[in-house]
């Protein structure tokens, strides 16, 4: 394989505007003399298929897609790069202020609104959080808002509908990613006077660039070096980094997926969604 052949990168499109960001990233790699081609996918399952069939060199994977790739290859994939903001994310369980809940076990017998069933942050991890407090599905009603299943919660519609369910009083708690709680509290979507965080999950990691184990080291290094050349201090790079929601690219780590892996395992997610 020629060293100059563009690296083929896969990305899932949860909104057509995402293609604009990828156009800018592609131009950046071109300027670095390390060209990439970008393939877009409608969902993560198709993207992981393409990675395993070697139609992609690198996949920008959700945490669930990373686990999927690992499971389907028997652990033969590698996570190579992630954003600083992919590290140490957490999920909040949000309740109405003054509703009388002081800890998670108080939700026994109540309804908890969740995002799409394949959302790590708004369904899989919060279900595991509840379980860790002894609230098994038979002791709490879980109400999923399955908006755009297949996008692994990238589309925040399900998470937002879950919160609106809480707002209407049809649920007593809802789950949301910490970044969404912060953003929605600032933009008025959530009134932080009326709602509060009851509990926060253990930290977990989010997306990563995944390659198959036999992806050539030289090409991987070229890809990593291009990303690491991005600097938030450079105004030309900052716009692109703000659009992707990061201040620095970091080497990927996989220790941050343990919580999700346990959730997937205990909830028999793959068995129920194949």
């Amino acid at each position, binding site marked *: 394989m020629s060293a100059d052949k563009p690296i083929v990168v896969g990305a899932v*499109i949860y909104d*057509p*505007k995402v*293609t*604009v960001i990828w*156009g800018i990233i592609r131009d950046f790699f071109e300027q670095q003399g390390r060209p990439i081609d970008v*393939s*877009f*996918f*409608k*969902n993560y399952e*198709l*993207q992981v298929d*393409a990675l395993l069939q070697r139609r992609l060199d690198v996949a920008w994977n959700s945490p669930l897609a990373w686990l999927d790739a690992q499971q389907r290859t028997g652990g033969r994939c590698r996570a190579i790069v992630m954003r600083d903001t992919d590290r140490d994310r957490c999920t909040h369980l949000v309740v109405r202020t003054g509703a009388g809940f002081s800890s998670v076990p108080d939700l026994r017998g109540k309804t908890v609104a969740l995002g799409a069933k394949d959302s790590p942050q708004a369904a899989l991890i919060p279900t595991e959080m509840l379980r860790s407090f002894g609230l098994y599905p038979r002791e709490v009603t879980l109400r999923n808002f399955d908006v755009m299943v297949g996008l692994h919660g990238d589309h925040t519609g399900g998470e937002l509908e879950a919160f609106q369910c809480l707002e209407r009083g049809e649920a007593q708690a809802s789950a949301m990613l910490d970044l969404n709680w912060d953003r929605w509290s600032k933009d008025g979507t959530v009134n932080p006077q009326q709602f509060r965080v009851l509990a926060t999950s253990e930290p977990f990691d989010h997306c990563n660039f995944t390659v198959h184990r036999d992806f050539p080291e030289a090409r991987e290094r070229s890809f990593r070096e291009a990303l690491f050349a991005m600097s938030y201090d450079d105004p030309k790079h900052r716009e692109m980094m703000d659009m992707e929601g990061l201040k620095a690219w970091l080497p990927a780590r996989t220790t941050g997926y343990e919580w999700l892996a346990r959730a997937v395992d205990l909830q028999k997610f793959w068995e129920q969604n194949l």
Partner: protein
Amino acid sequence: MEPDDPRHPTWTLRLTASAEGPAHAHARGQRFDVGDALSFDEAYPHATALEHALAAAGAELVNGLRALARLRRLELDAVEALVQGKLEDALAHLAVVGAEGSPALRSLHVRLYASTLEPEGAVRELLEQVQARAPLWQTLRRAGVQLSVELKVAP
């Protein structure tokens, strides 16, 4: 040389595409630029082909309404339209793997405002005639695009 069938006159445009910029369209003595088929980038610096198409369909109505009002000696102070178009599946245009739909126009909605002292019924009647005579509007209707017009008449 046989004259054209008067029912089927021909319009001819010349288009040239540059490497980076928009296509330059020349029609009669007029020139205008047309960008990519469509764009999701708010900062994209050219009007896209889709935006030109939506503008053309809207222009048929606003210009047609003015022209017909003049012929009927009805006074319109101001005419304005907001045009909104939706595709069947924008992901198909982007060649997204797994997108199974068509990038065709799915719907076109026009909100049309007319400021006039004329009776509202007279303006509505004009608008119906304008739609019936508008080539693009009728083409879109025949193609199955969902067309809707919301007319607001105010003094």
